[in-house]
């Protein structure tokens, strides 16, 4: 079947196409070159419409234990957003911690065709994949969490060489069926189990004597030497702590040029100036990002309203639990692997801190010059539910709207931000960069996020509208692997995406060491811990797609 998309205005930054009118052809789920003389089976008239690749959310908490705790914790939030069963669609719930089915439908209805879960605990990876296996339409993948696991910390304590650590990291990527490696509060989740309540970049873990800086270094090196496309995904030290801008700057300089991705950087860009001892560090952070091409960031923008924060950072979630709204929260220590904390939260525009957090996120978006290195996230659901992306896009693209929103915030926060003076407005091309081309490249997907021949036909078509929120809320068409899945912002067909993984090679000797560690200290056998690909595909819907470790970002 040959499908022709005719006359759309195409934004395809991977090929430097910036608003050029041209036709696209789809055959067998792929974008193809114009076939000479072939009969077109179906044609869509896209004249006057905007065409981009399907959007990719490179950091969103959509599956895994802490997400399901968040769901279970919040029946009152679900009740306000019930989703009805239809002939095509399953019922569910939306908003802060949506059900898996609803997650897929709502992402697709906004033109997203892939999403990546950034906090997959190795021991909980099976659950993460099963939850993501119940998310329709989207492609998905996970970043496996290391850095507070006792096996790594023991290795570091014992002075293991980098090669052995590389083997362990590669084994873990394979065993957990993930595409990247994440570190959360390096060493800190473990330190909390030893009753440490803070762990700064150069502070020693009370038991292992290892510092977060050292953990970052060995993991970033491992990811780089294994040539895993996605750089080490870093949730740094001191999340949410006023003054953490210094830690973040030291983290950037301390990594010595290795590729790293600093996630939800908004939460790590706080100074201590002003009457409330809370200020924006965004300008300094943006300056550092601009000066260090090895660094990418996503913002973790906050938006006002009720949400729930779900993080592997049990240490800081516990410290912040007093702010829970409604007042209930969960913290867990998990399997000598990591931990989690789930704290419901309501961001208020009349609250000084929340208002300034909002401004800090936007400052970072607007002050980082290169849209290839800053990514659109709310750290769903931590800063806001993913359904607020169209609103966030409008804030970036429409200065008068942004300043009008700013004028409603806590007055002291308005005085503490330079936002009103920033003139930059994102273009459609730049939005396509950050949500498509750059996101695909960052994750390591060569056939997604662009519209060149051979790419998967994940395509989103918008009707232009000066109200960018409206435009991005309701695509005219969304194609997933060449199938029309959304028309006029409504899901019309349900397909199932693939799970993207990498499989770096390693010396199998590490498995021997791990097997005896598992027998002695863990509660399952190593061979039962390893997730086989058939566990993802045996339901007849899922599949695993392996991407090469090409190390395109290597230094």
């Amino acid at each position, binding site marked *: 079947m040959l499908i022709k998309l005719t006359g759309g205005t195409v934004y395809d930054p991977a090929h430097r196409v910036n608003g050029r009118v041209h036709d696209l052809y789809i055959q067998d789920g792929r974008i193809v070159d114009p076939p000479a003389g072939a009969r077109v089976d179906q044609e869509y008239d896209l004249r006057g419409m905007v065409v981009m690749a399907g959007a990719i959310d490179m950091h969103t908490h959509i599956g895994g234990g802490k997400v399901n705790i968040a769901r279970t914790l919040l029946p009152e939030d*679900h009740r306000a957003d019930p989703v009805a*069963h239809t002939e095509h669609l399953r019922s569910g719930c939306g908003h802060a911690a949506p059900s898996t089915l609803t997650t897929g439908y709502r992402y697709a209805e906004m033109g997203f065709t892939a999403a990546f879960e950034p906090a997959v605990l190795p021991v909980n990876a099976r659950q993460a994949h099963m939850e993501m296996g119940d998310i329709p339409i989207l492609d998905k993948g996970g970043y496996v969490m290391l850095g507070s696991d006792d096996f790594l910390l023991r290795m570091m304590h014992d002075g293991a060489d980098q090669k052995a650590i590389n083997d362990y990291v590669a084994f873990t990527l394979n065993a957990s069926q993930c595409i990247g490696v994440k570190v959360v509060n390096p060493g800190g989740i473990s330190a909390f189990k030893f009753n440490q309540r803070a762990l700064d970049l150069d502070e020693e873990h009370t038991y292992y004597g290892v510092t977060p800086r050292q953990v970052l270094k060995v993991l970033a090196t491992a990811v780089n030497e294994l040539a895993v496309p996605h750089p080490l995904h870093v949730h740094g030290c001191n999340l949410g702590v006023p003054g953490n801008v210094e830690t973040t700057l030291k983290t950037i300089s301390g990594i010595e040029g290795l590729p790293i991705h600093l996630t939800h950087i908004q939460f790590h860009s706080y100074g201590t100036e002003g009457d409330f001892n809370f200020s924006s560090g965004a300008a300094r952070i943006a300056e550092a990002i601009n000066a260090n091409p090895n660094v990418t960031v996503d913002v973790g923008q906050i938006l006002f309203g009720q949400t729930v924060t779900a993080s592997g950072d049990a240490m800081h979630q516990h410290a912040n639990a007093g702010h829970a709204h409604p007042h209930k929260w969960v913290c867990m220590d998990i399997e*000598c692997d990591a931990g989690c904390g789930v704290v419901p939260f309501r961001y208020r525009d009349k609250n000084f801190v929340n208002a300034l957090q909002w401004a800090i996120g936007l400052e970072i978006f607007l002050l980082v010059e290169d849209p290839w290195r800053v990514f659109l996230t709310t750290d769903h659901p931590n800063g806001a539910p993913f359904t607020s992306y169209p609103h966030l896009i409008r804030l970036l693209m429409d200065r008068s709207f942004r300043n009008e929103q700013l004028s409603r915030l806590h007055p002291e926060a308005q005085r503490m931000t330079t936002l009103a003076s920033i003139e930059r407005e994102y273009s459609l091309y730049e939005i396509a960069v950050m949500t498509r081309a750059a996101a695909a490249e960052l994750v390591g997907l060569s056939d997604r996020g662009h519209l060149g021949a051979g790419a998967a036909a994940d395509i989103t078509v918008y009707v232009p509208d000066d109200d960018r929120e409206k435009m991005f809320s309701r695509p005219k068409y969304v194609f997933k692997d060449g199938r029309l899945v959304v028309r006029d912002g409504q899901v019309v067909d349900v397909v199932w995406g693939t799970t993207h993984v990498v499989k770096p090679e390693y010396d199998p000797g590490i498995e021997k060491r791990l097997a005896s560690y598992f027998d002695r200290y863990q509660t399952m056998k190593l061979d039962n811990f390893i997730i086989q690909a058939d566990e993802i595909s045996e339901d007849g819907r899922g599949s695993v797609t392996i991407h090469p470790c090409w190390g395109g970002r290597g230094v």
Partner: protein
Amino acid sequence: MANRNEQGVWEHVPSPFCGIGSDDLKIRVSGSRIEVLENGDAVTREAFEQPLGETRPMISGKPVSLEEAVERAAAVLAEAELPLLAGLATDVAGMRAALSLADRLGAVVDNMNSRAAMRNILVLQDSGWMTTTLAEVKNRADLLLVVGTDVESLFPRFFQRHIWVDGMFVEAADREVVYLGKAPSGYASVSPDGRKPTVLACEDRDLPAVVSMLRLLVNDRPVGVDSVGGIEIQALKELAGRLKSANYGVIAWAAGALEWEHAELTVQITCEMIKDLNQRTRCSGLPLGGREGDQTATQVCGWQTGYPVRVRFSRGIPEYDPYLNATERLLEEGEVDALLWLSAYNSSRLPPRVGVPTVVLGRGGMNFDQPPEVYIPVGVPGIDHAGHTYRTDNVVAVRLFKLRDSGLPSSAQVLEAIERAVRAKLSS
């Protein structure tokens, strides 16, 4: 993954029955006969080794083909105003299929162990908690406080696997066990070097007051009595002191053992006490459960609907109500007019006796006083087909393996077939 040698002996077999996900079992399979050779216990051996039993589907006690049974089951469910899908003791795939069917039918779903599970879920949803998992217990717990539960009768290998071993950060010889409420029924909690647990025994009915008193003492609040529920305050004071001085205390309970009205309040006080303790030291809760797929049911229902259990789809949206959607209440009040009962692990968990047409998907060998309208024997996850189940700590999903070829369909396969038949009926 579990693997089989030439003699039909499997190693590293995970148990879907024990709640703690033991996966070191050695099992011999000869034809349909199963024998646990190593690392079994009373719970696991019995569950693995019971004979295959009846494998033919029945309508009103008479053998029929699977197709006929599925067709009749679909008719019973499709004709009902409000069907109830209960029991729901199955694996992840089975639970997925049950929820899909319930969504299509507009049915209510509830789990066979949810009366116990609600004692925890209500606490989680009201105030939250701090909990831990089995490997943390194994490697860190220097003090285990058991509240109101005889652990070894429910989880025979709990102590052997997690307490009386040398962990990374604590040795068996340095661990201490205290029982509050029920005394242990055996010797599993006696350390290898012969130390008996401290037992502060009281009647179940006094345990709420005892736990409340312990929380007061943990918080150094003044108390004006000398004893509570027959336990000396001085002994509770010492326990409070131990909890405060422990490096990593663990407080365990099995909600299923807390058989009194509003036991969730006792769970809540326990969990709030754990939060109090964590202001200075570390301490975590360990809710014990996970048998008969109960955590599996709440997990899958949680991610597919947002709600853990007791969900009604009759208005087209999932609606959760911990009281109104309880199996016992729905049946007693006559609110449902058909019942599908699913028990894939345990042939002795029979459907409640009710006056409504009943479809049973059950492990072979169920003995009914009165045959249900439809009985479809299904395979046991982890014996007859592969699958996934959750163990007690809710974090670790255990991969289950197919050990024998019984020809029995999985609960998912039967439920999917029923849904296809229901769909055909509803659209015709």
